């Protein structure tokens, strides 16, 4: 384990701050390419702690503005700190960030807790301004997404914990008049060699005054007592007793409730509206027109919903095509353009095909998908006395702050983002539209807190969808082995779509289009992957596993086709092709766990798929059964390698959750466009996987990989191809389009 000093010099600033009755310790990660400019600024005190540990009389609170959307990040981050800080798991407290406390106790704020910085994140601002081309990198610092949290926190949270521990020891040493090296820490106390016990709380205030130690060792893995074990999640009791606070659960004095109706032609303006009837509804407070629709503010949500339904609108049309097939036509046409990226070009594919006896080809496509978080997007805002408070479950606190600043003209110090638990995120809550409407409502009713709840219908029809995409492949085998594989994928660019709504414009290729194709561990002698980029269509965004959702379906179905063409067992063929041992072991493990190759009943079949996504090799096998009512998915097995598994039970949950999310999309997920509007409006026509359709799952976690990896997304990509490949094995029907329920019935 490296010394913090070394790490700190390169990537972290470890700091402490005195707070009322205690101390805050934290680390700020700095990406390496920006060392110099940032360090200069940091010394000026412009940057403060991002995530930190608050120690005071009430104990230790671990504070992270990381959005908890179900992935267990807060528990895992807390464990990193608790591990180094030597506190008992039962004593750990967590908080999304002190801003939420500050609202109730402004005195804390005034006393100089490094508060605004938590969500203002000066570092992120700086990077936005100065280092635009590398925004993607900056984004990982301030957003919760890309399965990045675990890896991000792994060093910095442990380092912060260790730093705090040593500071507490130094404070105790001073108080006791002994050398710090004679002191031990355990259970939230510093313990002297004579048995004297000093609680962290009693030492907190003085610990902020010590000169921070420079050379701190992180505990080796062999000494871990919390990390690597399955810990009870810190949010679990709240979540099973209805006491967990999601954004819609915030209640403030005098609060009003609102909803929003915007143009169903996404991105289109509102030409006009007639709210005559709506205004007459008892309880309606205000109807706020915007460029693209209205906000209806009322004294309860139901009244707002009801009134909103009574408004008639004149909507302008959007600039994307009106009908679904036209969208596919745009994607299809992209194959005729120059590729956007060609990350892999091994051997000579063209030459190989000209030598080949037989070439197989195929074309695949997938529809748009909604995120459909159980919690429709929403936010609460209060604008009062030159200060804006915003409560939102969100994956990108700084982006929420930026939009709020631009709408109110307030500076960062006066815009306070209170990140709440998210009722699902999956990428949707990294957008800012829900905050925008809440801020607009707050501006219209200054001094009054307003909660803007979207109806499910509004949420479903105004998403930033998983893009439609197409995949084409051409392949051949030689001597009973895969010989050439040429894969092309085309889809609109998430980056372009983001730029269109004010996000960063990034020059160069959009690598999300090419995710999970070019870096797969297959040693095919002639192997080429190209990604094509279409003009923007519907607004699109990151959807659990981003490019991996469609690309793994294309890739792994195509690989399966190639295996059948070559007369090879699809799993064995993948094993033979794999040029990476960590990946190979993952696939071997899932083969063993599922009993791949065993004799199955006549009406059963299995399919397998593999994907290396977000650095995590993931292999899945799905077993299906033909019943009188259709195909039933009965079992699924998944093996992942996350490098260092920090919390196995939580990783297991993320893997089967990701798998189920992918199965839902594969079986029945489809957002389509008709007359320029989204067809699907609610769960009756955009249903999802339910209990009776969910397979029994077994998950295995390996730790052969070198790097620690996050696990929120990798479970999703192999799900669709594993199911499609199982359907082929069962029926002989190769399904090249999602969702599968267009072609087969599911029981």
């Amino acid at each position, binding site marked *: 384990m490296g010394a913090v000093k070394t790490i700190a010099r390169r990537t972290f600033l470890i700091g402490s701050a005195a707070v009322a009755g205690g101390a805050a310790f934290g680390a700020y990660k700095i990406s390496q390419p920006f060392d110099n400019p940032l360090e200069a600024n940091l010394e000026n005190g412009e940057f403060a702690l991002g995530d930190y540990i608050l120690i005071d009389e009430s104990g230790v609170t671990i504070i992270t503005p990381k959005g908890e959307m*179900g*992935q*267990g990040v807060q528990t895992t981050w807390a464990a990193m700190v608790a591990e180094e800080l030597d506190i008992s798991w039962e004593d750990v407290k967590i908080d999304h960030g002190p801003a939420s406390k500050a609202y109730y106790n402004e005195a804390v704020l005034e006393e100089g807790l490094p508060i605004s910085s938590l969500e203002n994140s000066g570092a992120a601002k700086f990077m936005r301004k100065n280092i635009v081309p590398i925004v993607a990198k900056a984004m990982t610092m301030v957003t919760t997404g890309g399965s990045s949290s675990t890896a991000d926190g792994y060093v910095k949270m442990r380092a912060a914990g260790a730093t705090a521990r040593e500071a507490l020891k130094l404070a105790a040493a001073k108080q006791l008049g002994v050398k710090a090296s004679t002191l031990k820490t355990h259970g939230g106390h510093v313990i002297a060699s004579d048995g004297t016990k000093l609680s962290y709380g009693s030492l907190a205030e003085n610990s902020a005054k010590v000169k921070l130690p420079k050379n701190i060792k992180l505990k080796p893995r062999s000494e871990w007592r919390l990390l690597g074990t*399955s810990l*009870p*999640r810190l*949010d*679990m*009791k*709240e*979540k*099973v*007793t*209805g*006491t*967990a606070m999601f954004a*819609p*659960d915030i*209640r403030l004095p005098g609060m009003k*409730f609102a909803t929003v109706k915007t143009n169903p032609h996404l991105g289109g303006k509102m030409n006009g509206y007639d709210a005559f009837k709506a205004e007459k509804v*008892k309880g309606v407070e205000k109807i706020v027109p915007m460029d693209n629709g209205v906000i209806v503010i009322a*004294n*309860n*949500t*139901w009244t707002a919903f009801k009134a909103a339904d009574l408004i008639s609108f004149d909507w302008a049309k959007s600039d994307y095509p009106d009908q679904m097939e036209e969208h596919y036509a745009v994607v299809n046409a992209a194959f005729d353009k120059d590729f956007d990226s060609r990350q892999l070009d091994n051997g000579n594919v063209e030459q190989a095909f000209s030598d080949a006896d037989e070439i197989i080809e195929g074309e695949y496509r997938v529809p748009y998908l909604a995120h*459909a*978080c*159980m*919690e*429709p997007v929403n936010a609460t805002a209060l604008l009062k006395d030159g200060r804006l408070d915003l409560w939102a479950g969100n994956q990108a606190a700084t982006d929420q702050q930026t939009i709020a600043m631009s709408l109110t003209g307030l500076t960062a110090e006066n815009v306070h983002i209170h990140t709440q*638990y*998210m*009722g*699902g*995120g999956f990428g949707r809550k990294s957008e800012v539209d829900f905050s925008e409407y809440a801020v607009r409502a707050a501006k219209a009713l200054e001094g009054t807190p307003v909660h803007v*709840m979207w*109806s*499910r219908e509004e949420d479903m029809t105004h998403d930033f969808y998983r893009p439609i995409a197409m995949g084409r492949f051409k392949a051949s085998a030689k001597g009973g082995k895969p010989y050439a594989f040429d894969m092309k994928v085309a889809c609109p660019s998430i980056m372009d779509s983001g730029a269109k709504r004010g996000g960063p414009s990034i020059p160069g290729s959009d690598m999300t289009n090419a995710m999970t194709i070019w870096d797969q561990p297959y040693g095919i002698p002639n192997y080429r992957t190209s990604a094509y980029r279409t003009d923007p269509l519907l607004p699109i965004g990151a959807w659990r596993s981003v490019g991996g959702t469609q690309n793994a379906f294309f890739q792994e179905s195509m690989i399966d086709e190639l295996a059948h063409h070559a007369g090879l067992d699809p799993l064995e063929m993948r094993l033979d092709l794999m040029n990476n041992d960590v990946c190979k072991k993952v696939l071997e493990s899932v083969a063993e766990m599922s009993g791949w190759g065993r004799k199955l009943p006549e009406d059963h079949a299995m399919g397998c798929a593999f994907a290396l996504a977000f650095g995590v090799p993931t292999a899945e096998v799905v077993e299906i059964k033909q019943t009188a009512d259709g195909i039933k998915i009965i079992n699924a097995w998944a093996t992942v390698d996350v490098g260092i598994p920090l919390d196995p*039970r*939580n990783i297991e*949950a*993320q893997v*089967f*959750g*990701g*798998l*189920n*999310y992918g199965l*839902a999309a594969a079986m029945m997920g489809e957002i389509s466009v008709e007359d320029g509007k989204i067809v699907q409006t*609610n*769960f*009756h026509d955009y*249903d*999802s*996987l*339910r*209990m*009776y359709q*969910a397979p*029994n799952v077994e998950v295995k976690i390996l730790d052969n990989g070198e790097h620690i990896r996050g696990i929120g997304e990798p479970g999703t990509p192999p799900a669709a191809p594993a199911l499609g490949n199982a359907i082929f094995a069962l029926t002989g029907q190769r399904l090249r389009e999602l969702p599968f329920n267009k072609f087969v019935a599911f029981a």
Partner: protein
Amino acid sequence: MKLTVNGDTHDIDVDEDMPLLWALRDELNITGPKYGCGIAMCGACTVHIDGLAVRSCSVRAGDVEGEVTTIEGLGSPDAMHAVQEAWNENQVAQCGYCQPGQIMAAASLLTLNPEPTDEIIDQAMSANLCRCGTYPRIRAAVKSAAAKLGGA
């Protein structure tokens, strides 16, 4: 209009046709039951009326006869109901938004059918949607809750 929720009787002034869900959430500030779809397709708003599961988004406040119990009334963090204990032990929740509804549905099921088979669980619990895909643990938790309640 009078509503008895978690043992307390409230007098609220709302339209008869206001769904119980919004009367609970916005009038009484009882926010355990969640809004998910408004059309009884997701189950996040599930509460009990006289001990049995009801989608509070789809019952008009004016039609409520009987006592309403929400997740908050089922048990508290310090005194959890057997079903909540089972959920906690099985570490079911991920995002947690659907879980109040899941738990209320499961508690209702176990009142009606104390020893549910897998098939029965599939029938009773499939009207509660979970986008995090926590189903394997929900199934396990329903069974351990059944065992707890049976042993009591």
